[in-house]
């Protein structure tokens, strides 16, 4: 056997980017399960439909770019994007909403920038933000959690869900759609938060479903931390800054601002903190930078939720901080071994 000549190192840890992505996918399973459990088949169908589209589009794009298709498909990054969009969309969103979202995410936000690793913005969040701006009605009609119904488990049958998503028979699920807790809290008219907690049925009875889903995402995130897929810096900084601001405002005016727990456990806070803000491609890269990046997201989430026009703010906040990431990188170089202080700025 002829000897090969190659420079060091000669040892390599097993695994590749595909396995990283698979781990992330695995970590989304509790969240997916919780969503399906509380909100019906819709989320699962969205995820599957989105994945199908994403794989097809990714393959088409890679082929057009004349690169080996299987090599690129097995990094599973398209799949992660599709799953994240699927988890973020309302369960009964029509099929074309997901289709538009995947086209935007895979083609525009990712492949047009050069594929995995080259996109400045998180593709899932680009898609989500575009859909939210373009189709506000479809994007804000959320399914009601089953716990609110007295008669038990399956709120909407699989068949009804499928026809609601892929057919025109939206009427079957209309009765089961409602706003999200964040939406309700936003448009509460002249009522105080205290009053809303009592008055609104969802907030009074259905909020537990949201808590459970957030907890599931949190578990997935902890799993990823344990697997060292990402470091603690971004999620902790994001959750901490959000908690801090929410606590301060709640302590100052408890009847006007929801409590911090509400901020942490509703909307996409946990999904964003552990699965989207931690996207390494689009976030700041050094540990210090990740702290700033996460804190910025937390701040923006609170600001947009409180004073903005949209019910949830995670997508916008992350996109805005994606914009800042390269700048943050310039000023958050770590102090290298043997250096008195870190280098800053550009050269």
């Amino acid at each position, binding site marked *: 056997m002829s*000897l090969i000549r190659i420079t060091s190192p000669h040892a390599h840890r097993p695994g590749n980017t595909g396995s990283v992505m698979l781990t992330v996918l695995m970590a989304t399973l509790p969240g997916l399960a919780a969503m399906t459990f509380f909100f019906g088949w819709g989320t699962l169908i969205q995820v599957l439909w989105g994945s199908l589209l994403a794989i097809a589009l990714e393959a088409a794009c890679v082929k057009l770019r004349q690169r080996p298709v299987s090599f690129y498909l097995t990094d599973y990054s398209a799949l992660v994007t599709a799953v994240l969009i699927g988890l973020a969309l309302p369960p009964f969103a029509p099929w074309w909403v997901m289709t538009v979202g995947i086209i935007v995410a895979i083609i525009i936000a990712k492949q047009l920038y050069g594929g995995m690793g080259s996109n400045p913005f998180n593709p899932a969040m680009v898609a989500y933000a575009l859909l939210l701006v373009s189709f506000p009605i479809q994007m804000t009609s959320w399914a009601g959690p089953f716990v609110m119904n007295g008669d038990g488990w399956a709120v909407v049958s699989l068949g009804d869900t499928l026809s609601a998503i892929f057919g025109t028979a939206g009427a079957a699920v209309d009765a089961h759609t409602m706003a999200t807790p964040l939406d309700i809290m936003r448009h509460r008219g002249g009522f105080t938060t205290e009053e809303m907690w009592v008055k609104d049925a969802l907030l009074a009875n259905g909020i537990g479903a949201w808590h459970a889903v957030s907890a599931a995402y949190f578990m997935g995130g902890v799993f990823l931390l344990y697997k060292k*897929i990402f470091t603690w810096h971004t999620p902790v900084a994001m959750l901490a800054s959000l908690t801090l601001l929410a606590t301060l405002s709640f302590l100052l005016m408890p009847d006007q601002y929801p409590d911090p727990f509400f901020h942490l456990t509703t909307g996409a806070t946990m999904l964003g903190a552990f699965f989207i803000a931690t996207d390494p491609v689009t976030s700041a890269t050094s540990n210090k930078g990740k702290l700033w990046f996460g804190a910025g997201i937390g701040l923006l989430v609170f600001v947009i939720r409180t004073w903005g026009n949209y019910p949830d703010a995670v997508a916008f906040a992350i996109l805005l901080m994606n914009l800042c990431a390269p700048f943050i990188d310039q000023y958050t170089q770590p102090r290298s071994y043997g250096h008195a202080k870190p280098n800053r700025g550009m*050269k």
Partner: protein
Amino acid sequence: MKNTIRVHQFHGGIHPPENKKQSTGAPISLAPLPSRIILPLQQHIGLPADPIVKVGDRVLKGQRVAEAIGRISANIHASISGTVVDIGPHPVPHVSGMDADCLVIESDGQDEWIEHQGLPDYTQLAKPELIEYIRQAGVAGMGGAGFPTDVKLHLGDDHIVNTLIINAAECEPYITADDMLMRERADEILGGIEIIAHLLKPLHIMVGIEDNKPQAIRALHDALDKSHLNLDIVITPTKYPSGGEKQLIKLLTGVEVPSGKIPADVGIVCQNVGTTTAVYRAVILGEPLISRIMTVTGESANHKQNYEVRIGTPIADLLNHSGVDRAQMQRLIIGGPMMGITVTNEQIPVIKTTNCLIAASIHEMPPQPPAQACIRCGMCEQVCPAELLPQQLYWFAKGKEFDKARHHNLFDCIECGACSYVCPSNIPLVQYYRFAKAEIRKEDDEQRKADHARLRFEARLARLERDKIEKEERRKQRAIEAAAAQAAKKDAAFNKAASPATNNPTDAGVPDLKQLKSNAAIARTKLRKAEKALANAQDKGLDGIETLQATLKQLQLKSELAEKAYTEAQQAPAKSAAAPETDLKQLKSNAAIARTKLKKAEKQLAAAEAGGEGDIDALKAQVVALQAKSADAEKAYQAADSGTVSPVAIDTSALEAEIATLQGKVDKAENAWKAAVESGSPAAEKMAAGVEKLKEKLTGLQAELTQARSAVQPAATVDTSALDTEIATLQGKVDKAENAWKAAVESGSPAAEKMAAGVEKLKEKLTGLQAELTQARSAVQPAATVDTSALDAEITTLQGKVDKAENAWKAAVESGSPAADKMAAGVEKLKEKLKGLQAELTQAKGHLETNAEGKAEEAPAIDLKALKQQVSIMRTKLKKAEKQLAELPEGEDNASLMAEIEALRARHDAAKASFDAAEADKIAAAASEGIDLKQLKIDAALARAAVTKAERALSKAEQESKQSLETELLSIRAKADKLNATLERFSD
């Protein structure tokens, strides 16, 4: 076993599979004696060693075969006994895979040691000698880079070494050489540490060892119990790369070696544990570094174990000895899997730094899968022991943004490979960094070269600029000189031609004609242009037609005038000079040629007559014929000459020239006669007769000249100038003669009296000429102006001479020369002369002032300029000379320079005086018409200021420079007085 001191942490690090157990099963065994060894001349950092044996030499085991060159280098010794068979390039263990110079020794199988002896009582030796002893043994770092150990041992000289760290971490997977060494030879290690500690005198000694070597730790502890060494064995957690020098230092001391510094800068010296045994063997046993412990391992090796291997053993021997399955072996690595290098040639030898040989199978080290895109996951950052941002460095290296890479501390990368190890995208990160580093080094090199070139270029430009300036200055100097020459010429021309206005226009007729013609042509062209413009303007109805018409009219007038002038000029010379001019010249030269021929013939005749030889009759006939010819030519010339109106001027000048030549002849003849008389030659009488003849001829000519002059009025001006020059020449002769006479007097020569007579004669002549000059001047009115200036110049020259003479006299007085008295008389005489001239000048001036107010103005103006120029030239020369003098080193002979300066100064003063006089004249003239009294006043004030300044300078000046200052003061004072006088005159 517990650590007694705290272990710190370094950032990052990885835990690759250790793969160490495989090779620790068997004890260290001696590798078989190789049949031949290959010793690379460079097995260390620094300069390669220089071979000191030749091909064919027999060498013994332990014999030095190559010696260190320079401070950072190491000796190389034969590890077997045998014959040197080759010195040349062979494959060596280097990452480049290139060959390098090696010594090849064929074994004789006897393994015969050279005589060697240890130094058990090394403490008796002075430190430098002990270090030299270690250097002689060729000990170099055996851990990684192979830094010559003696250099590190010298660190105690200029650094304060607090801590000695023995690196026994051995963090790379697979390698167990140090582990086994510690297990089996702990005593040697401690012995080596003792020697190193003796040299460095550290306060604290630490052995850093990873916790995956418990047996080694135990062995060290056991050995330590028996030793009196005081050291700490520090157990560190197993983590790659804790064996990196900087990382181990951080682990054991918490101190970071500053970027770009060495550990000794923070009081720490690191030595590899293998090096300590080498030191021990070198010092205690006297064995140079000829063998080392190394691991042979890898899946394709049958016996994975450690060997004591002779340096230079080809790795093929070891592979064979270990039963490596070549079919299975896919990657052969020297060193560890993280930082080792692959080799493809089994003839590559083991060197001092070779600690491991991994014969890896494809299962063990599969080829790297293709790299995926970097997702900036940051895993590399988490493991980087240098705390860099490998993901960013990767982007910068890939994008060739080397500035940014450098800014992100690329050069702090130790290339440990941890980042590549963890990269999920399988990006060969370290290769990117090596690429970037190499590129940056190349860029820096090029930058350095470019800077060098730029500096050289700038220096060249500066040099060229300097040359240019110097050239320019030289050119200016030349221009000044040329201007001076021009001015002198102009002066002469001026003197000769008087004012062109008063002179005959035919003189300038020829060039004038051309000028006039071109003038007329230009005027015509201009006129046509103007006409065209006018027509154009009229066509288009433009503005300004009236102005154009006016211009046209003017141009028409001008053109007409020019044409007229031209035609007039054309017609005028046609009548008079233009044609005869050339004829006349021809005739004149004909006459001159005839004369010359005649003279030659006459000379020949005379010679023949004197010698009484040759065909005298023939010669006589020839002379007669020539005489006739000459007379003819002369006649023709005179006829032509008299036909014209003006050529009288030429006539007289020709006459003058003739007279001058004749006079020269007379002088020569007289001299020859005198010489003859002195030497008592019989030819003297004849000569005297010749002289008489010549004199007669001269008188005749002179009479002719006077006649010609009196006949022609306008030529008078020329006359005087000619006279002037004559006088000047004569005066020069007088001076020369006087000098000669003085010299003669001084030297007591008997010829002095005769000379004195000659001088007297010359002087008489001079006076005669001067009288003539005065006469001529009084006769010619317009020439008066020129006259005064000439007189002025004469006076100044004379004054210079007076000064010179006075100086000489003073010098003579000082030196007590007997010639002083005579000299004084000479000076007196000169002064008298000067006075006479001055009187003459005043007379001439008075004459001028009363007679030629208007006319005089133009001439002095020109005069003044020329004079001024002269003054400035003189000043420049003077300054130059003075500078030269100043630059002359003290004690050198500067007398000649001084004399020169004196002369120059005199000349300068003279020029200045003449200038001043002329200026005063001008001012007077101007003032008489009421011009600028103010300026005068200012000048006067300035002059007064200059006087005070000079006075002050004088009072300050030392004795030496006093004299020159005094003269300067005098001249300035004179100037001031003069100005004041003028001022007073006018302010009344």
